[in-house]
């Protein structure tokens, strides 16, 4: 109804700059800091995750010092010990592993491996990183507030997380919850990008069943995260309200040190259900990208196709789906309805079947391969061993009645470190040794890498394998000091001291690794193009490292899966995904010349 007079447009000028020019960054700030290129965002994510991960590593040292040499270090009070435990756990699971696999490897590899020029929403992708950084900074800030960071354990169970008997129950826990909420907001921005890019921006010929398993792993993990993180989000918000405004979402009637509190009617068990509805898929949010990446590393470095590709894809998807119906196996002795135990034990053990198939297929990929014992291959082999070990102890804990004596003991600590700490981190290392030449154009130093590998793999195994047996003895977790007991008949001090020394050494090896990265970025031996002779698209870019836009004038066209290694009849032992069938050198033709 508004009266608008249409102005007459005399002339619309032609575009003054070519479209691609607008798309590229022009200033130092937009190229390296507020950058929308997924590869730069990936490195920002990775660098931040590793930096906060080093904090987590140092915290683990201090914890181990207390356990290995109790009553030696006066600065490790019971309060401080619990705060170290809590921050170590949360940092490693959320701020290191989740951020590194999805924000780091996801950002770097998704566009390159599916043949896209970038993520579909680059601006939102950039925001994702900056919100993640904000979340990390809020988390770090909690070290400096009165009362210090939360000491509630990484599971943050109420009521104790917000009651005065727990260190950091004031500002510490609130900052933790706010940080988590920001992390989830940031992750959601990135996660939508990963999913939509994989579904919508694949290049011609890149059908879903031609995607490298790395992409399948990251894709499924991202879908899980988008569905699971909201449960953590609501629990963080509700607990913040319980803490700050005195609501009672998770707080029943409580008598604290003889004093009646104003809470009433809430349920601590509800929080546990919400937490683990997120928390169990979280295990697979970390594990599935590792599954995917290690499949590709094994295939490339064994010069053989991954065995049973379709089975591997369906196993990833199946594990992802099942991971939403097993959460309460973390709660067998939580006081929930005991009949849940039947259901969750069954679903949990069923998940072992697709997981075991993946293990078989990794080993069958090595079978009759042409195994090059490069660093990525060594790390992949170490992954198989530690993952099988950690997966098997999962069969103990998943089987409800076996869990009863072992839950809340050091067996649990050993299990989850082996299966979602050691094993995925070994894949992270393998992946960095594998893709570093692509990211930097240089190779990592092999001698330092060998040292790093052997100390990390054998050291981590020596830390966690014997630790299971402390759990059989009955040593509980999260104990500042076990002291004198009658149930420990064989002294455990020597074993605890041994584990601590091993942990210090393994931690030191990580410093060597970081030194190796820093030195190699500047002075490493220049890498040849595609040094591992891999088939996937990220190695087929015009320049190395790939520039903004990833590929040259034409996006690559995909003709086959990513596992055409040692194809019978072909001259080369690998055929990149984008080589036209007519261009494949065949042995018969070669002989005819």
């Amino acid at each position, binding site marked *: 109804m508004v009266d608008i007079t249409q102005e007459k447009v005399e002339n619309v000028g032609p575009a003054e700059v070519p479209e691609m020019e607008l798309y590229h960054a022009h200033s130092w700030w937009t190229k390296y800091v507020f950058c929308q290129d997924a590869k730069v965002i990936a490195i920002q994510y990775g660098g931040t995750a590793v930096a906060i991960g080093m904090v987590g590593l140092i915290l683990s040292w201090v914890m181990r010092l207390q356990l290995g040499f109790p009553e030696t270090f006066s600065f490790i009070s019971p309060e401080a010990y619990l705060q170290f435990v809590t921050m170590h756990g949360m940092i490693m699971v959320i701020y290191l592993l989740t951020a590194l696999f999805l924000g780091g490897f996801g950002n770097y590899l998704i566009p390159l491996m599916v043949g896209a020029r970038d993520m579909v929403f680059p601006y939102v992708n950039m925001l994702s990183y900056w919100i993640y950084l904000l979340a990390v900074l809020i988390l770090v800030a909690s070290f400096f507030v009165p009362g210090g960071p939360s000491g509630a354990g990484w599971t943050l169970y109420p009521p104790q997380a917000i009651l005065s008997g727990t260190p950091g129950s004031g500002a510490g826990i609130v900052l933790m919850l706010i940080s988590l909420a920001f992390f989830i907001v940031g992750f959601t921005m990135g996660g939508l990008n990963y999913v939509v890019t994989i579904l919508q921006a694949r290049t011609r010929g890149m059908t879903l069943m031609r995607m490298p398993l790395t992409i399948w792993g990251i894709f499924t993990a991202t879908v899980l995260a988008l569905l699971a993180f909201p449960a953590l989000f609501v629990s963080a918000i509700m607990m913040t309200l319980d803490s700050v405004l005195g609501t009672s979402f998770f707080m029943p009637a409580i008598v604290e040190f003889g004093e009646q509190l104003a809470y009433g009617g809430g349920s601590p068990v509800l929080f546990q259900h919400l937490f683990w509805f997120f928390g169990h898929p979280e295990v697979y949010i970390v594990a599935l990208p590792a599954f995917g990446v290690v499949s590709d590393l094994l295939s490339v470095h064994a010069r053989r196709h991954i*065995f049973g590709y379709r089975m591997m894809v369906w196993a990833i998807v199946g594990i992802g789906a099942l991971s939403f119906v097993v959460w309460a196996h973390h709660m067998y002795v*939580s006081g929930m309805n005991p009949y849940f135990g039947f259901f969750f034990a069954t679903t949990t053990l069923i998940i072992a079947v697709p997981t075991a198939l993946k293990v078989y297929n990794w080993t069958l990929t090595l079978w009759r391969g042409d195994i090059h014992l490069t660093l990525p291959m060594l790390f992949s082999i170490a992954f198989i061993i530690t993952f099988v070990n950690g997966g098997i102890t999962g069969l103990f804990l998943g089987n409800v009645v076996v869990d009863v004596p072992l839950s809340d003991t050091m067996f649990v600590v050993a299990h989850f470190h082996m299966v979602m700490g050691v094993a995925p981190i070994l894949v992270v290392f393998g992946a960095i040794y594998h893709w570093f030449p692509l990211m930097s154009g240089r190779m990592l130093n092999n001698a330092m890498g060998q040292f790093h590998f052997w100390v990390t793999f054998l050291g981590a195994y020596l830390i966690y394998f014997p630790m299971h047996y402390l759990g059989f003895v009955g040593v509980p977790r999260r104990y500042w000091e076990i002291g004198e007991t009658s*149930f420990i008949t064989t002294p455990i001090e020597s074993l605890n001291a041994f584990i601590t020394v091993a942990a210090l050494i393994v931690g030191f090896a990580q410093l060597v690794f970081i030194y190796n990265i820093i030195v190699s970025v500047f002075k490493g031996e220049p890498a040849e193009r595609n040094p591992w002779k891999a088939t996937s698209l990220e190695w087929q870019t015009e320049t190395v490292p790939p520039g903004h836009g990833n590929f040259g004038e034409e996006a690559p066209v995909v003709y086959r899966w990513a596992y055409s290694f040692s194809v019978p009849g072909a001259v080369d032992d690998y055929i990149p995904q984008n080589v036209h069938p007519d261009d494949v050198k065949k042995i018969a033709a070669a002989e005819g010349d």
Partner: protein
Amino acid sequence: MWVAIIVVLVALGSLVFHLMTPWWSTEIASNWGSMDLTIDITFWVTGPAFIIIVLFVAYCIYKFRAQSGAAEAAPNSNHKASYEPENKKLEVWLTVGTAIGVAILLAPGLVVWNNYVTVPDDAVEIEVMGQQWQWGYRYPGADGKLGTTDARLVSGDNPFGLHLDDPNGQDDILVEGDDLHLQLGQPVNVLLRSLDVLHDFYVPEFRAKMDMVPGLVTFFWMTPIRTGRFDILCAELCGTGHYAMRGNVVVDEKADYDAWLAEQQTFAQFRASLQDKSKNVKSVAMNDVIEDKTDGGSPVSPVAMNAAMNTVGPMPAHGAATR
């Protein structure tokens, strides 16, 4: 070559450690030997699987490792990897085999779990109550019934929060600051309650454990099968004093058990004794002590807690603490 050897050593070393370890489950003191048996079954199924898979990996490394430079120099040599993307028959067999293995683990596990959650009719009820960072115990008394409770009713003269108008509660026997006693061979349904945060009643020799949740009554049942004095630990993180939340449980022959129980105060007797005391003593010191603590703000060290418990005496111990 030596990579394969190290992988073999990892497998064999794990096996040797497992067979030789001096660290193993403590001698059991309850009827839950079936839990230990389920653990053994799990080892028998999964242990060989672990060894076989790791040795297979070692064999592949040894047998199929690239000869140095062979792939580059002679890509058509015998070392070229074989090409066999799928093998349906093999994959089906591996699936079926794994499923059978899993069923062997799960079936006995669920049977034992069914026993664990099915309390026998002849089990007597006792209550264990947790609060930061100590244990309290309640026996049903002569009528064999525990009185009902409510956390809202907890106070210095009603430490368990019993309903005063519930006749079942008057003869309940309250024990604080002393050991828990159980009768040898008598199945017992342990009802678990917490006043403040999550705790977990854990006796390693009993194998059984269950969280204690404020607002809920949880339970597990067991039968003590040997006499002795065992450690009670808290197995669910409950704050600064978690590591120090200890207690003891004594398994007695029937005669000793009955004698011990006869010495304990009932709820009614406890109330009466308090009234006697308050006639003599003008004020109950405990309330002042509590205010000390809450005004101080920071959590109290459990050592101080225990010291306070001992000075104040066995009954009104909850929250009594000085710094």
